[in-house]
């Protein structure tokens, strides 16, 4: 196969994820649905409420404790809501520096991954080469391996390479672990960009790289944003990797510095812990909303992991 062809997507093979270029519409409920008896619908509603509560209650603890001056491990309505906990934690050492560290680590990781994933996904998406299938399987395989399992040897490797306690080293490792999934997602997004547009560019004498840059990337921006946010969120929330690889408290991201609220206070400052958690979680929650705006990001993610 040396001529570029569009990737056929047999319905059983790789379903194309709904992407931003085609925002997924919730398929309309079948007309028969509303006409059904009220019973099942009520049961479904009740079940949803129950599940919703199971998820809401632990989340409510964070929010309520963060404004409760006397917070404990149990959820209670704060007698007098106060922002005292936030005032306590909003210091450079407790919050700003760790959050900045997180931003640097996650941002750098996401940028590297998006660039490399786009470049790697392009040939995968556009050329049905011999190595393609094997490569795809390898990528799939790579995205599946539980990376936490190799943290012990990774630590030993970093000692040997002299990369311990180095932010760039940590970024590289996080990038490497996020890459397979990102390539996979990017490839799926790329498959949905019609190849005919590029063919037009080639006729005009553009090289593949130019075609990628001028034609494919602009069409894929929302998809790339989804990948970026996905990787950023993963890195932002990762605790174990920086916990093992970054030792200097001045370099540690929020994920690790939060541990000090817990481990070193005789009386755990739950209120402060909760306030810090809110501050630390907000950015990724906002990003998630952005993905929703970009067009059903969750479905895009789900679609892109469908194998």
């Amino acid at each position, binding site marked *: 196969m040396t001529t570029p062809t569009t990737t056929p997507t047999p319905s059983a093979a790789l379903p194309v994820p709904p992407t931003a270029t085609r925002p997924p519409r919730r398929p309309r409920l079948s007309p028969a649905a509303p006409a059904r008896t009220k019973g099942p619908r009520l049961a479904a509603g009740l079940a949803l409420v129950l599940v919703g509560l199971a998820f809401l209650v632990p989340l409510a603890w964070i929010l309520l404790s963060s404004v409760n001056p006397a917070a404990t491990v149990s959820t209670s309505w704060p007698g007098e809501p106060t922002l005292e906990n936030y005032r306590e934690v909003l210091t450079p050492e407790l919050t700003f520096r760790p959050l900045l560290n997180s931003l640097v680590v996650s941002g750098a990781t996401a940028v590297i991954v998006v660039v490399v994933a786009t470049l790697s996904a392009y*040939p995968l998406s556009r050329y049905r080469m011999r190595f393609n299938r094997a490569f795809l399987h390898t990528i799939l395989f790579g995205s599946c391996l539980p990376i936490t399992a190799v943290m012990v040897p990774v630590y030993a490797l970093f000692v040997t390479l*002299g990369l311990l*306690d*180095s932010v*760039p080293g940590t970024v*590289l490792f996080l990038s490497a672990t996020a890459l397979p999934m990102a390539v996979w997602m990017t490839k799926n997004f790329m498959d949905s960009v019609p190849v005919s547009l590029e063919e037009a560019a080639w006729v005009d004498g553009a090289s593949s790289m130019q075609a990628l840059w001028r034609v494919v990337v602009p069409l894929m921006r929302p998809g790339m944003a989804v990948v970026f946010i996905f990787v950023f969120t993963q890195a932002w929330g990762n605790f174990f990797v920086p916990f093992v690889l970054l*030792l200097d*408290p001045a370099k540690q991201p929020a994920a690790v510095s939060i541990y*000090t609220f817990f481990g070193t206070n*005789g009386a755990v400052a739950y209120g402060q812990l909760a306030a810090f958690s809110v501050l630390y979680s907000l950015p990724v929650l906002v990003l998630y909303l952005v993905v929703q705006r970009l067009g059903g990001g969750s479905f895009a993610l789900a679609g892109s992991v469908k194998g």
Partner: protein
Amino acid sequence: MQRTRPAALGAVALSLGIVLAGCGSGSSSGSGDTNTITVAYQRTAQFTQLDSVLKKAASEYEAANPGKKVKLTAIEAEQDQYFTKLALMNRSPSTAPDVIYEDSFQVRSDAAAGYLAPIDEQLAGWSDWSQFDDVAKQAGLGDDKKTYGVSMGTDTRALFYNKDIFAKAGLPTDWKPKTWDDVLSAARTIKQKAPGVTPINVYAGKAAGEATSMQGFEMLLYGTDSTLYDDSTQKWVTGSPGFKDSLSFYQTIFGEKLAPALDVALDATVGSRVATEMLPRGELAIALDGSWLPGQWIEGDNAWKGWEDTIGFAPMPTQNGQAPGSVSMSGGWLLSVGANAKDKNAAFDFIKVALNRDNSLKYDTENSQIAVRKDVASDEKYLSYNPSFEFFSSLVPTTHFRPATPDYSQISGNIQVAAESVATGSSTPDEAAKAYDEGLVGIVGQDKVQGG
């Protein structure tokens, strides 16, 4: 297609190159800067005394040595986590600190690992060294008989008890238990007469780390006729009756609910909670703990007015009252020079400042350490600072030290596992002792053990 691949790969390589080039600039805590001394030490919310003395020493050192800088790297972690972090830092020359706050039991192990630098030459030129007592000098010795650290102070361990609770339970307020059974029966009386109070705390969890080995298990074991390590044959002891009896003590206090609830006992913060919450609030009647506790009650965030009227002290009795009647364990911490320090003399100069007479006095009083400098130990300021010094110093003649071998730290981990498994009821003392023996042989080899 043929055009694409090299191009794409080239771009990947290029972007990697840019990133890798950035790696070189990543400065690390063990920086190659010869004018900066990095100091790694422990700081927690309840342990700030070291932080304050090192800050003072750092500014004094910088004032005396223009152009030199001291970078204090406080590791915010409970003890067990602190050891882990320190080991992780020491493993790599690029992150290894120049000056290290070391627990005495880690010195031999870390010296053997090549993490510490011998300081005999520098000590020879330090007039203050003659002020340190022999026990303190021993504490810094490595397997090769070279010195690898300067002792900051030592400690002993004993029973703390709450006189108010004792009075309420009809127990004597000048309590003098003679055997383990005396301790247990007092705890049982408290359980009956003072409901809602935890009768006794003996550290039992892995999360409490060395506290479980030393304040807990070894305070029991060294009061039996058995031992952990036979100094004369230089072999570790397996299957000793004392080992199982010590575990049985745990089985008793946890089985009869005389000890804290497991969720407290197995938590990493249990040490802090005993010192800052349970004892001051009268929630705990008896605590087997270390001589440094009163330091934080005298002043600081956890000051407790009138603690000396509430808390009584009693030596930990031997199992059946056998001679010498009581038992204590001693440890202590040192400041060591890292093997990878660029300027070892400068690092040692900082230690000289941090442990000169003034700073040793400050640290030993505030952190209620038993002074190891003769000039501090006889200083009126020191003697009058803390009413508990007299009692804890009186335990020195009957105190024991942990086996000074490089593999102690690993074996200590196995002791914690044994104690926790008995405390949780998942093993009997016999099973836990057997598991300990297996682990021991795995660590030191069959030729380094002997039956007890």
